């Protein structure tokens, strides 16, 4: 049933551009998709290891800037006589570089901040994002500061000498984002259903017990941070080559908050949660735009966030799957001892088994 649902959903997204001609709507889907990838990456940390990273936008921004700079090339005057010249590289190389550099920053921040937990961890991650934002703003030689990096090349597909397609249009970008989203989803899914994912969940649930059973706490937190950061970096790279301009505002705290809202609304620690949340908060602004100013929209978001915590603390997906089980009478032992999954989450966990 759930596998069927996943495939129907993928098929729907694949065929959507065939009958949806509204280019603006396609644009909304692309940006929602990019944010959904970022939300999925945050979910790995927030939902599965239980660490509230409020600096997540840093990895998104690092991916965006790295990818932009590698594809544009840059000069750095290191001393009066020596200038480091970095020639432009193909966009795909740049994209991968963005993922790698973001992953490395995830490793760094993981190493330094997982000594601390709770409120301390939150504040370290915020500080990290702010420092990176200020560097992007002030290191004008490299980043152009507030003037932004412009004319960033789009992705291209080419058979050398025969055929070339630059992704100036929405359609190829749409499919690219969809492809990266699927890869991200599969990555998270495979991780959380493995011994690694169980180790992460164990840390979230009961750290001393996990440690006494032999789970290397730091190792798995750092691993989660690396994967999560790399994935956020991929989202940043997609963003930068689609929008084709990047300025220090990509590091604003408000984007982290958007990702957090997506994850907790959809349901943290569920595979489908960030997707549901990402689509709601990707499309909601467009619906609200008709009759509400941006300020009012944000007020609604803020109130929404409070309401979710008060009334639906686990998010939409767990609530829906609990409702589904009640309504259609799936008994608690339906999974059988072989699967060992609580039914509450079965809907999300078994989704996409074949992938």
């Amino acid at each position, binding site marked *: 049933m759930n596998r069927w649902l996943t495939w129907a959903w993928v098929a729907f997204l694949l065929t959507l551009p065939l009958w949806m001609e509204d280019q603006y709507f396609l644009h909304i889907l692309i940006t929602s998709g990019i944010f959904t990838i970022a939300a999925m990456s945050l979910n790995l940390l927030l939902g599965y290891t239980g660490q509230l990273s409020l600096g997540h936008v840093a990895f998104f921004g690092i991916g965006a800037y790295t990818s932009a700079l590698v594809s544009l090339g840059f000069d750095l005057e290191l001393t009066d006589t020596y200038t480091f010249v970095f020639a432009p590289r193909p966009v795909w190389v740049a994209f991968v570089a963005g993922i790698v550099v973001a992953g490395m920053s995830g490793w760094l921040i993981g190493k330094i901040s997982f000594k601390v937990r709770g409120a301390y961890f939150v504040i370290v991650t915020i500080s990290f994002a702010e420092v990176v934002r200020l560097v992007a703003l002030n290191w004008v030689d490299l980043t152009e500061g507030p003037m932004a990096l412009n004319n960033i090349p789009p992705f291209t597909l080419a058979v050398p000498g025969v055929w070339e397609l630059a992704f100036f249009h929405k359609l190829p970008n749409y499919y690219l984002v969809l492809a990266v989203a699927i890869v991200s989803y599969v*990555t998270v899914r*495979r*991780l959380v259903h*493995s*011994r*690694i994912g*169980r*180790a992460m*969940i*164990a840390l979230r*649930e*009961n750290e*001393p*017990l*996990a*440690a*006494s*059973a*032999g*789970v*290397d*706490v730091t190792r798995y937190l750092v*691993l989660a941070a690396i994967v999560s950061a790399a994935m956020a970096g991929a989202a940043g790279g997609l963003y930068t080559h689609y929008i084709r301009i990047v300025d220090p505002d990509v590091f604003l705290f408000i984007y982290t908050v958007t990702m957090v809202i997506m994850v907790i609304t959809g349901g943290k620690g569920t595979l489908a949660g960030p997707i549901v949340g990402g689509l709601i908060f990707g499309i909601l602004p467009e619906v609200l735009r008709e009759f509400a100013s941006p300020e009012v929209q944000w007020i609604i978001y803020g109130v929404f966030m409070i309401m979710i915590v008060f009334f639906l603390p686990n998010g939409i997906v767990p609530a829906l799957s609990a409702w589904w089980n009640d309504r259609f009478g799936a008994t*608690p*032992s339906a*999974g*059988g*001892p*072989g*699967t*060992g*999954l*609580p*039914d509450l989450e079965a809907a999300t966990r078994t989704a996409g088994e074949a992938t």
Partner: protein
Amino acid sequence: MSAGNGTAETVLAVDDLAVHFGGLAALNNVSFDVREGEVASLIGPNGAGKTTAFNVITGFQPPTTGTIRYKGQSLNGLRPNQIAEFGVVRTFQKTSVFASNSVFDNILIGLHRQGASKTWEILLSLPRVRKEELWLREKAAEILDFVGLSARANELGGALPYGEQRLLEVAIALAADPSLLLLDEPVSGMNPAETASFMDMVGKIRARGITILLVEHDMRMVMEVSDRVVVLNQGQIIAEGTPDEIQQDAEVIRAYLGHGARRA
């Protein structure tokens, strides 16, 4: 039950251990051994330092002085998960399970150490990862069967009745494949029938070749299952010997009566 393993090899050697919290000594000059295959018990009135000793052995609390060796390997300065790698696994005095995971998943988490799949293998979902996963699931089912929780596999750990949570806790520890199992007051809060069946379980665990170090207040259980008993009082060892010897020991009786400890 005393099997008289006097000749068996020492596996755990605690030597001159001291733990100070500020000016207070929770443990002082504590030395004792645990021998291969035996059930050793650590008893004493509340606050005698039993749990502190457990915390130090399993790496949750650094000792102020003293050494701990397991099978010749020093455990000093190692983190709990590294100590678990040597086969030293504990349970906690306050019931501790993964409350919002199913009982089956609790065991799968406990089996962490027995899996070997690497991150990249998992990301590529290699056949051997899937095979290992199936093997782990079989193993988990086997352990649940061993502790008698098979019927509860799909319930949430936190939803089990108290006595069964304690069993689950032991099952998680067993999943981590211990050669030395430290049980911290495993039957506290159990009713007499549950306690009796837990005592059988101790025998079964021991039959698997697992050495046991037990902290327990239930004297009837201690005297029945232990080969040797070490008595702590106010951070120091006041007696050590077979259950029979301990029951005759004047100082032990005085310490217990003096503190009004729980009776069996």
